[in-house]
């Protein structure tokens, strides 16, 4: 009922997810004078996979980076209006520690970015900087994360090798393992498969299905098949506006907006 009152777009009528883990209201976002997001409102439910789709440059990455305040490091970036709540807390509020926020909201980047360290040190990185020193705790977390990321069997005998020696798909799964090692609630993925071959892409998509048991996943993709294969909800952005947000099924079979239909049928983008 509150949703109706404030005009927040819930997925497909509103009863899909119960209590939303991310809730965005009336968000306007600028890079310097350039407005990149206008009046975005959406609610992302727990333990589902939400896909953000839209043509290149429409602001998907920007929106994603708002969720863990990665835009803080860009001097031009400015959140002009609106609010973002994660787990009910306004993340731009005065007593929110962005460091703590980023431990709760992990991120996997478009280009896999293994650090030039060993596989073990990569996965343990988040814990180490968080102050975990005990070897047994680190060992245990590294193994658990790599198992969760479906990489353990491939690398268990060479944890000390450089992460750069892994294949592209393995690197990206290692980055996922690195993100889940700090036990976040949410994992943001910005086109995680964009540089990968179809086989590696498929493995990551399977992984996403397994991970949604434990995590809420928001994935940016400009690959429509990927969105339809692995997401539960899909938000379509165009020119910085949220055009439609609904169950993935509905977006792809019976979108209510003409622009959505044009985009998913490949008429533009």
């Amino acid at each position, binding site marked *: 009922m509150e949703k109706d009152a404030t005009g927040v777009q819930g997925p497909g009528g509103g009863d899909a997810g119960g209590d939303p883990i991310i809730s965005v209201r009336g968000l306007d976002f600028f890079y310097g004078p350039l407005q990149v997001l206008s009046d975005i409102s959406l609610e992302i439910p727990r333990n589902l996979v939400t896909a953000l789709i839209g043509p290149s440059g429409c602001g998907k990455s920007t929106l994603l980076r708002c969720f*863990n305040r*990665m835009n803080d*490091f860009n*001097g031009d970036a400015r959140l002009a209006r609106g609010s973002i709540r994660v787990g009910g807390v306004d993340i731009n509020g005065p007593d929110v520690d962005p*460091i*703590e926020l*980023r*431990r709760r909201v*992990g*991120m996997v*980047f478009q*280009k896999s*970015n293994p*650090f*030039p360290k060993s596989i073990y040190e990569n996965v343990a*990185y*988040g814990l*180490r*900087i*968080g102050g975990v020193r005990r070897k047994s705790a680190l060992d245990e977390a590294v193994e658990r994360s790599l198992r969760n990321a479906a990489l353990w069997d491939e690398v268990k005998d060479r944890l000390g090798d*450089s992460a*750069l020696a892994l294949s592209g798909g393995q690197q990206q799964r290692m*980055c996922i393992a*690195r*993100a889940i090692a*700090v036990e976040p609630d949410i994992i943001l993925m910005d086109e995680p498969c964009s540089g990968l071959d179809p086989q590696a892409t498929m493995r990551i998509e399977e992984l996403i299905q397994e991970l949604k048991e434990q995590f809420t996943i928001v994935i940016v993709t400009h690959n429509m098949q990927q969105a339809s294969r692995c997401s539960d909800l899909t938000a379509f952005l165009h020119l910085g506006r949220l055009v439609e947000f609904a169950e993935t099924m509905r977006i792809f079979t019976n979108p209510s907006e003409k622009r959505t239909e044009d985009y998913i049928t490949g008429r533009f983008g």
Partner: protein
Amino acid sequence: MRGSVTTRSFAKGRRSFRLGEAAVISGLRCATYVILLAAGCIFVDIVRKGAPVVLMAKPPFVHMEFLTQAPQTLHVFRDEAGVERRMGELDFREYRSRVGRDVASARSYPYAGGGILPCIVGTVLLTAGSIAMAMALGMLCAIYLSEYGGSGAFIRAVRLAILNLAGVPSIVFGLFGFALFVLFFGWDVSLLAGWCTLAAMVLPVIITACEESLRAVPKTFREGALALGATRWQAIWTNVLPHALPGMLTSSILGIARVAGETAPIMFTAAFVMRDNLPWQGLRHAGDFFFQGVMALPYHIYYLSSKVPANEYTRDARYGTVLVFLVLVLAMALGSILLRARIRRSHRW
């Protein structure tokens, strides 16, 4: 029709055009040869004139006294057998007391005898200290500028200041150091004053190079760390600095050659013409170490070339010093290249 088009487009170009091309290439090549020639001439000249002073044909192949003694007055004379002998001041005195009379034929040449140990020691100390100082300060400054600075008015002013500093002639640094460190701070002509002056001089080179190597570290290393909940400093310390360090050390190589070679900044601030004690000899407190002047190779060369009467003996001493100087600078540069290679091996990306 088509065939003819293809044939024409693959036909050899006009003769004049090809000649022009050849002229350009040979022009470029000539310019390169000139550089090679200049470097070669300088090097060969120094080695040819300096090697006989420093090296010898029989073991240990090096004139050890040239590397282990202080400069002395050279005495040239004929002994009883009529053979020409050359002796430094100390040996000559001993010889004279042994023969028990004055040596009538002796002529003396100041600074042409003995060795250059105090100059080597002084240059090594000056270089190491000032590079350490400049690296420490330059790295901190570069980190601030490139990682935290942003692009505000203050940062622009700092950048302008660095640029200006880079354009200041070294003699001006010398006078500045003299006025500030030697007179105003009352440090006298001392190692510390020399370090500070030389450090101020190389700081722009080092800051610029450090900033460049920080910028060469991919943005994804920073972002990856930050997204895992690292603070900015944690991200820099664990994920940026280790990868920027080899590049920063390269900058120190450039700095070494510059610092070791400059005469002007040290001649009012740190260099003595002559000093009997080595820097660690005759200190009353450990702290006095920093407040003593030292001899230095470039200043010694300057002094030999312009302040003492020119003759074949000072010429020898000069070229010997130049050769040792060259080898020393190369050795220090080689040292930091090796260090960089080591660091790079453990931090590759």
